[in-house]
């Protein structure tokens, strides 16, 4: 039957499963904690980072709570229960750990951070195309995180002139304790969920951003996460605060080497947006998805949540998710301020045996709050791709609006695409609209392209990118390009 051959061809193309190009491993002298997790490990992490008592207390409180919680399994993803004792909870390049201890000295003005970075680590970031040297050319500020620690943060001085704080989370704990204390755990409490509790206990590093009132951050801020060591968990904690009337665009990229055992990633991101402020938060997630059966890929359990605290504030999440063996991620907006706006734009692509369960929560509390959800799910191979989302309109949210569009595309006949929306409306003046469709790449579309001379592979990638366009246009330009390329690579399986 023609149908079968059609699938066969697409499957064949998908099978030419190319090399995960970020899959190299960096050899460097590292200090890695022995596997296992108990209270003394939590204390040791805190001690390693020379943390004040309040931070240790926060960790211990979270750890105690975590021990009482069961691992959640409601997501549409199947995996063996994780043995949390089989992971190491701290790993850092040795030079990096030295920079940790001589933290203060590093902050001196004429010290260039890059000089202190392990050359192997620097090389790793260079080959990932991440600018970690402050050479002034890049119009982007980067915080590079290697396993458990932040390696370098560029452009800090330029940003400091505007009053913008952009540093690693560990530094912020030391240098801006009152800000960290004021905000940590306010959006994602330590007891929020299993993985958030784990993160709160063993948080490795992360990024801290504070944009003062009225400041429009002139360049994009970004963090690049790299998991290097095997059997290491990465538990970064990111806090981003946009004070009144400010604006910032923040980008996040991730990758990891090819491994044959699952690596664990459980991050927490808290975003606080004050009156009239706006935050754009973009993620291109390309964690190692594992081998053909997704063995050894990253288990990505992430809690991202922002609160639009003040009037007229706006928070926009954009994500392109192509990596990880399992993704469990629901970037959310609590729309508390009147007239605040929440947005979620997502492209999630799964191939092989990847499983993605992702979506968002839009909690409308303030008057005339509005939210938009555009989710594009692409399933190929033997993967399962699930959109799960909540739109909740509380009685106080007079005049709230939500529009949700969930589109799924199935590529091949061995994959699944699922849509599980939850809509809760408790105010009659709210208008909530949800639409979902399922489609595939039509044979007639492929033929049309081929009849104009375009190869099947190009046609598939063109149609797929067209399908995702509404989301990609929300990403900053370079990121959009990267996302398109990632999509093409993940799908086509042919290099170049």
């Amino acid at each position, binding site marked *: 039957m*023609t149908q079968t*051959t*059609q699938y066969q061809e697409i499957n064949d193309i998908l099978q030419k499963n190319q090399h995960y190009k970020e899959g190299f491993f960096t050899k460097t002298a590292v200090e890695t904690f022995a596997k296992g997790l108990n209270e003394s490990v939590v204390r040791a992490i805190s001690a390693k980072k020379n943390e004040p008592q309040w931070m240790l207390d926060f960790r211990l409180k979270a750890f105690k709570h975590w021990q009482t919680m069961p691992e959640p399994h409601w997501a549409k993803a199947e995996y063996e229960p994780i043995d949390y004792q089989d992971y190491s909870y701290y790993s850092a390049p040795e030079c990096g750990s030295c920079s940790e201890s001589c933290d203060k000295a590093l902050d001196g003005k004429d010290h260039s951070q890059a000089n202190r970075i392990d050359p192997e680590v620097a090389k790793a970031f260079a080959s990932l195309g991440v600018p970690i040297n402050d050479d002034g050319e890049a119009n982007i500020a980067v915080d590079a995180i290697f396993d458990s620690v932040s390696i370098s943060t560029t452009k800090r001085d330029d940003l400091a002139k505007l009053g913008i704080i952009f540093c690693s989370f560990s530094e912020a704990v030391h240098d801006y304790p009152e800000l960290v204390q004021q905000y940590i755990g306010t959006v994602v409490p330590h007891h929020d969920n299993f993985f958030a509790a784990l993160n709160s206990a063993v948080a490795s590093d992360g990024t801290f951003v504070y944009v003062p009132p009225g400041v429009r951050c002139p360049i994009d801020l970004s963090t690049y996460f790299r998991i290097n060591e095997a059997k290491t968990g990465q538990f970064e904690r990111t806090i981003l605060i946009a004070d009144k009337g400010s604006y910032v665009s923040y980008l996040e990229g991730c990758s990891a080497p090819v491994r044959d055992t699952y690596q664990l990633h459980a991050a927490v991101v808290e975003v606080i947006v004050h009156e009239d402020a706006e935050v754009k938060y973009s993620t291109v997630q390309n964690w190692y998805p594992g081998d053909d059966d997704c063995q050894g890929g990253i288990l990505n359990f992430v809690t991202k949540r922002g609160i639009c605290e003040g009037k007229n504030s706006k928070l926009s999440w954009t994500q392109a998710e192509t990596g990880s063996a399992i993704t469990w991620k629901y970037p959310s907006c609590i729309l508390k301020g009147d007239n605040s706006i929440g947005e979620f734009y997502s492209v999630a692509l799964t191939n092989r045996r990847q499983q993605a369960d992702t979506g968002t929560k839009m909690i409308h509390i303030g008057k005339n709050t509005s939210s938009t959800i555009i989710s594009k799910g692409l399933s190929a191979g033997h993967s399962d791709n699930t959109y799960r989302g909540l739109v909740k309109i509380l009685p106080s949210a007079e005049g709230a609006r939500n529009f949700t569009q969930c589109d799924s595309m199935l590529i091949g006949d061995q994959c699944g695409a699922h849509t599980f929306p939850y809509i809760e409306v408790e105010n009659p003046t709210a208008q909530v609209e949800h639409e979902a469709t399922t489609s595939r790449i*039509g044979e*007639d*579309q492929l*033929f*049309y*392209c*081929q*009849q*104009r*001379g*375009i*190869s*099947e592979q*190009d046609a598939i990638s*063109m*149609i797929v*990118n*067209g*399908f*995702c*366009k*509404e989301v990609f246009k929300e990403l900053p330009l370079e990121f959009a390009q990267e996302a398109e390329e990632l999509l093409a690579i993940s799908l086509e399986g042919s290099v170049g």
Partner: protein
Amino acid sequence: MLLNINNLKAQVEEKSILKGINLQVNPGEVHAIMGPNGSGKSTLSSVLAGREEYEVTEGQVEYDNEDLLEMDAEERARKGVFLAFQYPVEIPGVSNKLFMQTAVNAVREARGQPALDMFDFEQLAAEKMKKLEMSPVMLERSVNVGFSGGEKKRNDIFQMAMLEPKLCIMDETDSGLDIDALRIVAEGVNALRAPDRSFLIVTHYQRLLDYIKPDHVHVLYNGQIIKSGGFELAQELEEKGYDHLIQAYQEA
């Protein structure tokens, strides 16, 4: 000779549709294939363009001294076979510009020509659009999405102009068009007529032919060409209808 179809037989889902087609097309000629519904007109276009649902069971098709049936769809397109679709497909999110640039460069590469960069491409597109009195806005819109019937056809003509094919197959491109749209298609075809470009116009009605004036007209019935002639044959069909011809054929 550009196209030489010899005893072509084809079937779809085991149902035989083309039952021995013979047709020769020389460079620069315009041929019209006419016939009642179900005669196999669209199958012929599809087989020539390389649609995979159709299985050729017998016969040869020689195109520019090569075996056309051996090539897959994109190869045919790159060698200059262009199909104007009866129902042009919508491709959401893919702009006409990106689509056409990809296609043009694929075809140019096959011809050994350098790829056009964005500026050269836009310049070329602008020229062609101007000639076809098309609005440049069309270039920014997604391929055929939200286009009216007329716009879709006009878009096909534009693509034809951009790809500069040697053989243009118009698959009932006039179906469902109002008189203005029809004129657009006809004017487009006439503007693109050239000594090294041939046309195969597949249609049910002669009204498109009034504007195009083909050199040869063939009547297809039950998978075979039952009569060939000049433009006057189309006029005869207009006056007397297909039944009269079919009857004569069956009696013969």
